[in-house]
């Protein structure tokens, strides 16, 4: 199962991240997790939010370049080596991961956000191996 992630392009300029967060707050879009990757000139802010479509709309209206992307949120038990096992499974099936970051929620399982260009194959592989992914509904309930 896939969920929608909000991605925002931001220049490396003082206060720019704060501006993004300001617009999200003003429009009651709440953030469940975030990752910020950057080069020397710009960064990509990736957010798991309660309403990604709305978040993207308000940011684009405010002059940001934002988009909504499909990602997978994998559930994994709090056991040492659990993540490694899943990654090995993914890689054995010739699926490349573009990036990954943790989703911090208080639950029984740990969760990790994964982006891959072979998203359908990844979902199927996880499902076939009995590994849980988070649905949009579950996400909304958080």
């Amino acid at each position: 199962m896939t969920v929608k992630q909000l991605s925002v392009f931001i220049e490396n300029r003082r206060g720019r991240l704060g501006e993004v967060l300001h617009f999200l707050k003003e429009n009651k879009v709440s953030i469940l997790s975030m990752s910020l990757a950057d080069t020397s000139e710009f960064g990509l802010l990736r957010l798991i939010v309660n309403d990604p479509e709305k978040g993207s709309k308000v940011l684009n209206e405010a002059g940001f370049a934002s988009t909504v992307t499909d990602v997978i949120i994998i559930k994994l038990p709090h056991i040492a080596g659990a993540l490694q096992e899943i990654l090995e499974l993914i890689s054995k099936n010739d699926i490349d991961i573009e990036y990954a970051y943790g989703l911090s929620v208080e639950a029984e399982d740990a969760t990790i956000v994964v982006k891959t260009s072979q998203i359908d194959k990844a979902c199927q592989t996880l499902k076939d191996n009995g590994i849980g992914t988070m649905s949009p509904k579950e996400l909304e309930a958080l």
Partner: protein
Amino acid sequence: MIWSKNETLSREEIEAIQLERLQETVHRVYEKVAPYRKKMDEAGVKPEDIKSLKDLAKLPFVTKQDLRDNYPYGLFAVPTDELLRIHASSGTTGKPTVVGYTKGDMDVWTECVSRIACAGGAKSTDFAQICFGYGMFTGALGLHYGLENIGATIIPSSTGNSEKQLMYMKDFGTTLLVATPSYALRLAEVANEIGIDPKKDLKVKIGLVGSELLTDAMRDEMHRYWGDDMLITSNYGMSELMGPGVSGECEYLNGMHINEDFFIPEIIDPETGEVLPEGEKGELVITCIKKEALPLIRYRTRDITRLMYEPCQCGRTTCRMENLQGRSDDMLKIRGVNVFPGQIEEVVLSVEGLGPHYEIVVERDGYSDKLTIRVELAKATDSFKELEKIEKEIRNKLRVVLGLDAKIKLESPNTLARFEGKAKRIRDLRKGV
């Protein structure tokens, strides 16, 4: 069709006419126009010193400032009662530039525009809709008289009210459009909005565009809207020289043919004023050799181009000037390379994923110049790869076009300044900081 046999003379014949007319003009202005006499005396040159066309380089330049300093009629070579018409440039800073025409000047103007209209494919059977503003601006009336002279039917619709323009176009059967390239595109956009497909529903097959730069990207865009079979030619002129009619493209689209029996072109280095060898790029300087009221000598146009003397396939033997690259006022010298914003603009427009706005920043970095191009992302992405691809594409293209390495700065949409009038896209931080 070639309108005049003077467009197909041999080089010797053209030069003979030019020398005779040049000598006559120089004698006349020295005698009748005090500011010219003063300039020539200061430069130590007398009318008798002009023995060959090469001697033209001895004469001092005339600039827009000279026209302002002698506002309104100080550079005129005829008594004002011989004037038939006055035009003026908009004059964004200070007083407008005033130009005047005698009966003879009007005839020359009409002749020149008739030639460039024919070069651009106009025929006596055409219905020509003139979407230039009628008034003090020379564009509309210049094209009007020239096209009327070749027997075309004129629809003097002027500018504005695009929907009505399109109604005229459709109902009156317009076949030829006179407009700026940007207005031609705007008209096509409005046409699409109101359900008219210019390709199918209109009969416009000829576009005579002018008074703005026509880049290849713009011409392609025009073809996309108006159809591939439309012949779109650009033409050149400025009110100080006469108005439209100085030069224009033919159907082979390889430069604008200059009416050389009326205008002598030169290319100079805009910084030193030196005349450059044939084929080199620089500032266009024009000498009017058959004008009565305002015969400007070595007028600095500020436009950057290159001259080509090889004969054209169309049969015309006149010198051609390359489509304009920009204004010398806008030229930047970066690490010794001449850079025109127009070159950078073409690159920016050609890269997918970017908006049309950009800013050029030049800084001093130690002993070297640093060039940064700020551009806006038009489309959001979640991928660094895509962003890097855009950066790399602009950098590579700029290296090919300019031979310079530039730093590319991607920005969010709506970050760069927007302009209603003339855009200011250059920040040169090297001076006076």
